[in-house]
């Protein structure tokens, strides 16, 4: 039939060592496919890619490989089949973890999204898995009918439905690729530890750039508004005023961004309360107060400005911290909804009050 790997992307090409013919194992030679052979070795580009994925959205969105069947090592008709996503980082982590093993890897077309997120959205799901098993014609060359799906893929894969539609029994493997060797050695048996998702300090730190960078994009707009607001005088825009009066606001803005997008996520378990909005608020207050005390600018002595700052910036930190619920591996949607029911009106009111206070201050000064 067709060759899967004739027109493949650069990312896929860089990884494939050779194309092998699955025909050798086929019982029905008229149906054969080719599979790209990959190794468990990581090149410098793979290491670079693993870092770049955490920093750049645009890089990550393009970091994908061709979906389809791959051969790792020298698999044959008795080898295990692992299912992965076509997000290259997921695939790379899997093939690295399988160092020394010879297995088949079936990469589903998840549009370059990792297994867990894709499973949540349905692209790593029963339908895609069934289609991929059929397309790769696993049944034509394998002696067994077992397939290993990452446990987190269970969010989208209904094991029973896959079995009914393909005859393949789904085994949900360990959550983390590093446990795969022990899992295979134990005869495809997981310990309870292998089932659990962790959320270590390192994992949280890795996730913070994707919180910090979008926040800074918003900060730029905030800075322009602040400088315009303070610089605007009946005589026109005064840059001296804009800078002198606006600078404390910009510094406080930075403090609340650091509080909400970095300090709160990193120190998450050590901050009181379960609510992310409250955690972010506490850290926001703690970050904002020293900055206010350190700034000895005439504007800071104005009570209206002071109140506006104390209302707005901790709330901003709280809002940013609440965004981190999307990146954690333990918060749930019902909880986020519950938080937002109180937090969202509070944010809007805080923003409105601080804005009104600033307007009064401005009118008073004119």
């Amino acid at each position, binding site marked *: 039939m067709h060759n899967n790997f004739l027109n493949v992307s650069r990312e896929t090409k860089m990884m494939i060592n050779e194309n092998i013919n699955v025909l050798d194992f086929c019982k029905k030679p008229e149906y054969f496919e080719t599979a790209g052979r990959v190794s468990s070795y990581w090149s410098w580009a793979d290491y670079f890619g693993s870092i770049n994925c955490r920093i750049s*959205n645009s890089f*990550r*969105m393009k970091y994908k490989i061709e979906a389809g069947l791959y051969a790792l090592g020298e698999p044959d008709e008795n080898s295990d089949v692992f299912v992965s996503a076509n997000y290259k980082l997921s695939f790379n982590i899997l093939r690295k973890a399988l160092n020394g093993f010879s297995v088949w890897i079936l990469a589903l077309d998840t*549009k370059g*999204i*990792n297994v*867990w*997120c894709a*499973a*949540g*959205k349905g692209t790593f799901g029963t339908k895609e898995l069934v289609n991929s098993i059929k397309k790769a014609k696993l049944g034509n060359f394998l002696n067994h009918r077992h397939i290993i799906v990452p*446990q*987190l893929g*269970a*969010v*989208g*894969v*209904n*094991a*029973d439905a896959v079995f009914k539609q393909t005859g393949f029994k789904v085994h*949900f493997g360990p*959550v983390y690729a590093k446990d795969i060797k022990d899992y295979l050695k134990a005869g495809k048996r*997981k310990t*309870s530890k292998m*089932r*659990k*998702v962790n*959320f270590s300090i390192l994992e949280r730190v890795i996730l913070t750039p*994707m919180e910090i960078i*979008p926040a800074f994009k918003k900060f730029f707009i905030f800075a322009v508004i602040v400088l315009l607001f303070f610089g605007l005088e009946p005589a026109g825009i005064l840059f001296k005023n804009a800078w002198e009066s606006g600078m404390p606001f910009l510094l406080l803005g930075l403090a609340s961004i650091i509080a909400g997008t970095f300090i709160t996520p990193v120190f*998450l*378990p050590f901050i009181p309360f*379960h*609510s*992310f909005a409250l955690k972010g608020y506490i850290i926001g207050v703690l970050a904002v107060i020293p900055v206010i005390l350190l700034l000895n600018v005439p504007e800071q002595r104005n009570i209206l400005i002071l109140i506006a700052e104390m209302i707005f910036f901790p709330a901003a930190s709280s*809002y940013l911290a*609440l*965004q981190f*619920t*999307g*990146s*954690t*591996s*333990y*918060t*749930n*949607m*019902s*909880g*986020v*909804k*519950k*938080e*937002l029911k109180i937090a*969202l009106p509070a944010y809007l009111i805080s923003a409105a009050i601080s804005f009104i206070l600033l307007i009064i201050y401005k009118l008073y000064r004119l």
Partner: protein
Amino acid sequence: MKYLKNAASLNFIQEKCTNCLLCIDVCPHAVFSLQNKKVRVVDKDLCMECGACALNCKYGALTVNSGVGCALGVINGMITGGAPSCDCSDSSSVDCC
């Protein structure tokens, strides 16, 4: 780490359960455990509503309201009136998870 108390929408119907243990196998937070040869919900507050157990329960013993858990997604859902959506950036790309 635990999130809000009594928030998770997980619902377990003991009578329908056949103790096949698939929920224990797929749960990433050890919400279920086998006690006296029966599956029990140990701690509902640990549930992150991923939906893996409910999808894989052949017997309909589990229901959970699963969905996108990021705040912006939920806000988007509130504004549009639909389900929480993850398409949070200005582009149409799905980049938040």
